[in-house]
């Protein structure tokens, strides 16, 4: 049995809006083994994205413990968390989240600005990643010149360029038509076959089906998958 990459237990997250406290996540246990492809399903407002942000070290839980790759994340500083993200975690968002001022190459290059990797190595990885998503001939194009599917490919290239231990995808097909969505999912399946660990959040059953395992999240609690 392969060791756990993600080991989160009793995760709770509360937001204060004015005087009210809203619990978004409530005692969530969640673990993912290396090489797994897990889908997190649930209706909107169920806390899927919040969970994803916590798993991606972008956000801190209000309660619980979280170990990523056998490292205690909760006690880590901002600098250490940023380092984890830069070296090991790739994000893919529903809204692509590319920087409009930068071309494809520079967008994919972004994580390397914040990691300790050597520049010569970075260039190789960046071009490989862009080739891998099939945009090798359009490196100098700006995001505005791309279609939705292409933008999402760039985002995926950005995520895989750092050879991450974990890819976190937040509704990656949500803004795409069915055909393009299927292509993106196919890309994820291929990455999974190459051994990348993927956690994907979606509210779409058919999308979740491409994963190995599915976790249901309802009202901030884990239900049965």
């Amino acid at each position, binding site marked *: 049995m392969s060791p756990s990459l993600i080991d989160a237990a009793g995760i709770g997250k509360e937001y204060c809006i004015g005087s009210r406290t809203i619990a978004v996540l409530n005692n969530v246990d969640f673990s993912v083994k290396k090489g797994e492809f897990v889908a997190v399903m649930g209706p909107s407002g169920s806390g899927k994205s*919040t969970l994803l*942000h916590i798993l*991606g070290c*972008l*956000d801190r839980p209000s309660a619980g413990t979280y170990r990523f790759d056998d490292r205690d994340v909760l006690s880590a500083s*901002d*600098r250490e*968390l*940023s*380092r984890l*993200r*830069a*070296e090991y975690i790739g*994000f893919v*968002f529903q809204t692509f*989240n*590319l*920087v409009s*001022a*930068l071309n494809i190459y*520079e967008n994919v*290059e*972004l*994580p*390397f*600005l*914040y*990691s300790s990797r050597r*520049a010569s190595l970075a260039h190789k990885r960046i071009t490989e990643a862009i080739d891998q998503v099939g945009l090798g001939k359009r490196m100098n194009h700006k995001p505005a010149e791309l279609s939705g599917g292409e933008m999402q490919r760039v985002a995926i290239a*950005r995520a895989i360029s750092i050879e991450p231990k974990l890819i976190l995808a937040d509704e990656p097909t949500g803004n795409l038509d069915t055909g393009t969505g299927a292509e993106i999912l196919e890309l994820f399946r291929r990455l999974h076959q190459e051994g990348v660990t993927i956690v994907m959040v979606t509210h779409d059953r058919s999308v979740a089906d491409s994963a190995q395992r599915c976790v249901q999240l309802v009202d901030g609690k884990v239900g049965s998958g």
Partner: protein
Amino acid sequence: MDKFIKTIRIATRSLMQHKLRSFLSVLGIVCGVMAVLSMISIGEGAKQEVVQQIEQLGTRNIYLKAVNLTSDQRQKARERLSTGLTHLDVKRILTGCRDVHLAAALKEITATVADTPGEISPQVVAASASYGEIQNLVLSRGRFIGALDALQKNMVCVLGDDVAEGMGAQGKPGQYVRIENHLFRVVGVLNRFHRKESKAGAIAVRNYNEMIFIPLGTESNLVRPASREQRSSDQGLSEVVIQVHRTDQVLSTAKIVDRIVQVTHNNVKDYQMIIPRELLQQARKTQRTFNIVLGAIAGVSLLVGGIGIMNIMLATVTERIREIGIRRAVGANRNNIITQFLVEAVILTFTGGLIGIAAGIGAVAAIATLSGWYIAITPWAIAAPLVMSILAGIFFGLYPAVQAARMDPVAALRHE
């Protein structure tokens, strides 16, 4: 290092997205830097000019100059038995002050010189032998007036460069020059003297190029019997120059000289004392005041420019909240975000600084040609505003950058 260069490149890319906006926001800095550069250059030029003039007067020297008296004052002077600057003053100063190295007297003569071309009207002066040494007069040919010439009242003369040139073959050692009705043998010709033109009359350096020196004492032959009035005004010396051994003795010696002359002149102020060293110190003091004013102006203009930068950077940060979230998601820590926005701010102000320096040099060059002022662009005049523009970028970019870094990454990513 490589990453820093990339950060700069990406920052430039972001700024270039809004060329006009970036340019306009930087105008304040451009004007500030331009103002600072031109003011430093004008101030420095003025200072150098004054300093050079004063240095030509000699910082070891003390000048006593005869003052042109009104008839009223002349009457009073006569009542108190003061006859203006005389040889007696020189003698007393030489015996009375320990630190005096040399003293020389000079007397301006109104006399016509024959055979000079129209454009030159030589100034004839009778001078002591030591005058040449005190003023560092260098001869291109021959010798200066000697001590013996004064003693024996030798009818010799030394020509300034322009005079000698104007006289052609006659202006050479061994030839004779006719002054009034007397012939003076030329014994020497002065080297060309590069005189610093002066605007302030009090410290005017004599134009030796247009002068003819004759031994002090021989001038009495020249006075035309017809002009009695002339004679009385020609009586005293025009100038006494005293040179001390070292510059630090100037001020103390000047005090003693003043006391001695006051006594011989019975408190009649028919002379004026000029101490180049004191003028130099005054010039420095004035410069310091000027520098303070300059600093204040520079500060205000950079403040104004800086506020413009801060404004635009705050707008940029608000506009790019989403981008900040993206960068945080792919691994940027707070310091990376601060660096990024600081780099953008500094690129703005530094570019502004460069443009300002180019514009400033242009403006200064234009001022120099239009006004004829002496202007010195020192390395300092370029470095100082450039450094200030960088500092302004850091200072005014810091707050927006920190704002950006403090943002919650998740909220930033969700920002519409």
